[in-house]
């Protein structure tokens, strides 16, 4: 599997009913890289992800997958190239891990092509990649939050798509599980050549893991590029409306944001 699929948005407007969320947005996702979208609450980052994933129809502009408007492509065909993990997927009651991950094979199956050994292999690989093979026969409702999130990622992996879009896959996870999930996504990019787009809340983790960071504010892109080039105190101030120091992360040499707040402003000056 190699990163040979191209996803880009051109002049994209996205709206919920009358409410415009994303305006005239252009974005090309670098293939074979981990792109992280960041921004304050309600800046439109999840909406953008849904638009890119063809879950939301643009009111103007378009998303192009390999040069074709994604909303006009057969949705099953898109599903073999582009996988999506939405923010809050639903696990049916008492479903087993194997069954849930197997649902990712849906776009590869059809009327006359039901379950095959190839599907078993795909599920096994997805479980191995997410380190969840031990859980294969467990019901999903009994898992911990971190295990459950890894199982959902396994479901998206079983779809075996070059492109993978994840909406806040680390929410509700402890810090160690957040790092675990992002390490896993990095493995997929580095070793399997996937193109991955993630919406993240945590700016420091975003800076550390992103090959390409996209900072959004009020439905527009404020800055994009390598975190080292893009994440500055001015950008943080603009995007989050917050004064912060940007220092060098001692572990990864990437930018690290240290918020200042009202009570520590004096010390920060020193």
């Amino acid at each position, binding site marked *: 599997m190699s990163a040979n699929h191209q996803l880009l948005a051109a002049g994209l407007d996205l709206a919920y*009913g009358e409410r415009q969320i994303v305006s005239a947005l252009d974005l090309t996702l670098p293939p074979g890289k981990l792109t992280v979208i960041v921004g304050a609450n309600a800046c439109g980052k999840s909406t953008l992800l*849904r638009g890119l*994933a*063809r*879950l939301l129809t643009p009111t103007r502009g378009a998303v192009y997958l390999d040069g074709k408007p994604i909303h006009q492509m*057969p*949705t*099953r*065909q*898109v*599903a*073999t190239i*582009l*996988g*999506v*993990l*939405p*923010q*809050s*997927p*639903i*696990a*049916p*009651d*008492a*479903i*087993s891990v*194997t*069954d*849930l991950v*197997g*649902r*990712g094979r*849906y*776009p590869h*199956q059809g*009327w006359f092509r039901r*379950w095959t*050994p190839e599907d*078993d*292999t795909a*599920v*096994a*690989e997805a*479980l*191995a990649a997410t380190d969840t*093979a031990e859980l*294969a*026969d467990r*019901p999903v409702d009994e898992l911990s939050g971190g295990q459950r999130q890894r199982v959902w990622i396994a*479901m998206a992996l079983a*779809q075996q798509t070059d492109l993978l879009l994840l909406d806040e896959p680390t929410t509700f996870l402890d810090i160690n599980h957040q790092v675990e999930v992002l390490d896993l996504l990095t493995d997929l990019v580095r070793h399997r050549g996937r193109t991955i787009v993630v919406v993240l809340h945590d700016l420091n983790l975003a800076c550390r893991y992103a090959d390409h960071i996209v900072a959004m504010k009020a439905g527009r892109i404020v800055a994009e590029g390598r975190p080292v080039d893009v994440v500055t105190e001015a950008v943080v101030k603009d995007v989050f409306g917050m004064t912060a120091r940007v220092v060098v992360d001692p572990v990864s040499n990437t930018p690290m944001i240290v918020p200042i707040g009202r009570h520590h402003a004096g010390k920060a000056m020193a």
Partner: protein
Amino acid sequence: MSVVSDASRIIAVRHSAATRRRNVLLGLALALLAAFALALYLGDYPVPASGIVQSLLSPVTGLADRSVDFIVLQVRLPRAILAVLSGASFALAGIIFQTLLRNPLASPDIIGVAHGASAAAVFCIIILGWSGLAVSFGAFGGAVLTALAIYFLAWRNGVTAFRVVLIGIGMAAMLAAVISYLFTRARLNEVQQAMAWLVGSLNAARPGDSIVLAGAMLVLIPLMIGLVRALDAMELGDDTARALGAPVELTRLGLMLVAVGFAAFATAAVGPVGFVAFVSGPLARSLLKGAGRGFAQAALVGALVMLVSDLLAQHLLPTVQLPVGVVTGACGALFLLWLLMASGRSGRVN
């Protein structure tokens, strides 16, 4: 662990689920067969088992005993067949709604589809003075119209489960008021006829009822099987389903129409027998323990519930024959209370 041993582990998990599905199906089929035999055997007019077998075979063998044949072939057999078909139809209608709307309360007898059938039937009996088959047609129309009304009232850039349930419950309350109003305008004998219809009964089962219902099921079941595959994706939420390339709106509309068809035809045949649609799906799933969606198993549970309830209704009290709806209503209400209490504790009614 290697991917190969992982794959064999996955195959093992899938096989054990398939085995469980098959065993539950087999067990339910055997129980249904036993209940069916009992339904042919029990009755005021004692017929020995050999007589029943002989009677069932009489079209082939030509051996006839007119009085026994009448009891077995004209009274008990049509009644048992109608119980099985209508029970299975109610169950499928229920489990389709419950699965699509991800809510055990979303069965057609709770969200107003059955009330639509009832209101229409009562209108036909009291205002139009109809009876018999004409009332069934009216009930069918009422069920379909109510379902459409709920669907369109709940529509807002797509249909969300929660809106359907709330609007359905509101619709049910409104239609119950319509029924009460119609009763205040009726004469006593009309009320009696309407009440008998409302409770739901197999007492007047004729072979013709089963033929209409069986014909409808022959059309609806293949449609359901065609649509049901997309539920693999749709059970994970609408966004996930669309991401997996499932035709979400088409499948939902198609399956709802199929479910309304099941509910409407069954209601037209036996009246709005309460709670069979509501209990069958959850009962089947509790037997499966996560090993599958359980549509086939739910259909068998529905048939079994209907058949056993009718046996109880006929034979529980020595002197009176109850309508089957009284038994399913009493048992189903207990189940509803249990479900509300259990789900209240775990906080997941919706």
